[in-house]
């Protein structure tokens, strides 16, 4: 394997208030790989030049100078980092352990298509949407609980999702799980109530130095750009007020372009 000193820092574009960019950052921290964070604001993520990097206008995206590869979608990025750099299989299984390899990818896919989108919709209807729509809130809160119950069942009697060691599949779930209280506005202590296996598993990962380092970097980056730890910009009273101001700014800019 390449010596770590010979690896040039991987550039990772993050919108720090969002959970998804921190999934690959956590993987990079656990592997001890060099990387640089590039802050993308909520206003800039949907327009050029960033959309030349990710046409979907979402973070994270990476640019790896070692391979000259630009990549987006956090799941694809994680699979790339693992296959390219985890050659000692610290967070994965060697490819001859085919079963474990595919099972890791299976749980990553579940994170990507299940936990991420549904937790995100729960946050939208609980927190961000200005109007309270009880049936929509109930729908996504129930789905959030259902996903936790699937994980809790899978972790029954075991420490990790695949085999007997922590892998990228486990780590991929931490960032969203860590913020459940902000997503559905429950008490922090009660967010895993009924799911003791998930709670123990989550704490097993978030007590590690890599998690702490990633979260310190997040907080620092947020602070530098005037954001509170919960993602709210300083000086705004609510997410609604902030989003209204972003929307107003966007409209003003669009009007300027037309003129």
């Amino acid at each position, binding site marked *: 394997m390449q010596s770590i000193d010979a690896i040039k820092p991987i550039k990772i574009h993050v919108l720090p208030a969002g959970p998804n960019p921190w999934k690959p950052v956590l993987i990079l921290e656990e592997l001890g790989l060099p990387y640089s964070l590039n802050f993308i604001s909520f206003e800039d993520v949907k327009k050029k030049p960033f959309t030349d990097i990710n*046409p979907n206008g979402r973070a994270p995206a990476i640019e790896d100078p070692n391979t000259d590869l630009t990549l987006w979608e956090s799941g694809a990025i994680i699979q790339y980092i693992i296959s390219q750099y985890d050659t000692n299989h610290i967070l994965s299984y060697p490819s001859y352990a085919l079963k474990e390899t595919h099972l890791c990818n299976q749980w990553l*896919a579940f994170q990507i*298509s299940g936990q991420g989108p549904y937790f995100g919709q729960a946050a939208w209807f609980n927190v961000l949407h200005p109007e309270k729509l009880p049936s929509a809130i109930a729908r996504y809160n*129930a789905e959030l609980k259902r996903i936790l*119950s699937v994980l809790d069942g899978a972790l029954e009697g075991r420490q990790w999702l695949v085999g007997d060691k922590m892998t990228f599949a486990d780590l991929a779930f931490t960032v969203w799980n860590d913020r459940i209280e902000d997503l559905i506005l429950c008490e922090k202590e009660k967010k895993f109530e009924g799911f003791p296996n998930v709670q123990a598993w989550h704490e097993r990962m978030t007590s590690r130095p890599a998690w702490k380092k990633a979260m310190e970097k997040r907080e620092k980056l947020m602070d530098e750009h005037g954001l509170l730890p919960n993602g709210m910009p300083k000086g705004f009273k609510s997410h609604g007020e902030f989003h209204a101001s972003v929307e107003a700014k966007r409209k003003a800019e669009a009007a300027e372009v037309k003129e």
Partner: protein
Amino acid sequence: MASEEPSIVLYTTQTPNGIKISITLEELGLPYKVQKIDISKNTQKEQWFLDINPNGRIPALTDTFTDGKTINLFESGSIMQYLVAQYDKDYKISFPPGTREFYEMNNWIFFLNAGVGPMQGQANHFTRYAPEHIEYGVNRYQNETRRLYGVLDKHLSSKNIPYLVGDKCTIADIAHWGWIASAGWAGIEINDFPALKAWEDRMAERPGVEKGRHVPDRHGIKDLLKDKEKMEKHAAENRAWVQAGMKDDAEKHKGKK
């Protein structure tokens, strides 16, 4: 393969996520058995199925693994990655691991599985199945689905490529096809996206797509979308079990806060 009995068993239903896998298997020319899961009867929540997929969703797939034992797989994106890694040695519908195209292919698979699928699924829910009509919910998810279609349309047209990763149809295209083909069900007008529409037609001409889309039952969405009355009847039938399922899930996790 030692036995004549196919070692692959696909557990599926006639949905966009289900036909991804049957199309992949047909494109690869692999023998497989089909076990139909009746989601209107909650077969996917029976214990024997949960032992295969604890998430209680289709598709799932079992195969005799290289060690001679059974491997259980779920999540359509991961099943597709498994099938090409194990069986697509000539790279008919994939690219060699480690190549730029390989990573780009995975990029679009995740885009579908984390973006188009969940968002168009929510558009279906609020357009067709929700217990009450919430205009905001309909608009939110139809708009997001349209935005994602726009990303695909622009990608195909600006690069002037026939498939998502260039000249070759890959699992990234197959993953998208069932969803794009049922755009109308989510209230999306596919003709607003000409490059994507042309891609959809191009895909439909492939024998593997034609064969795989009719698993386990006939792929009837295109006909359904032409007949308003039939469409409403179909939605009403599904609405009943979707809402029953939601209620059931909510009950089960009550008190777990």
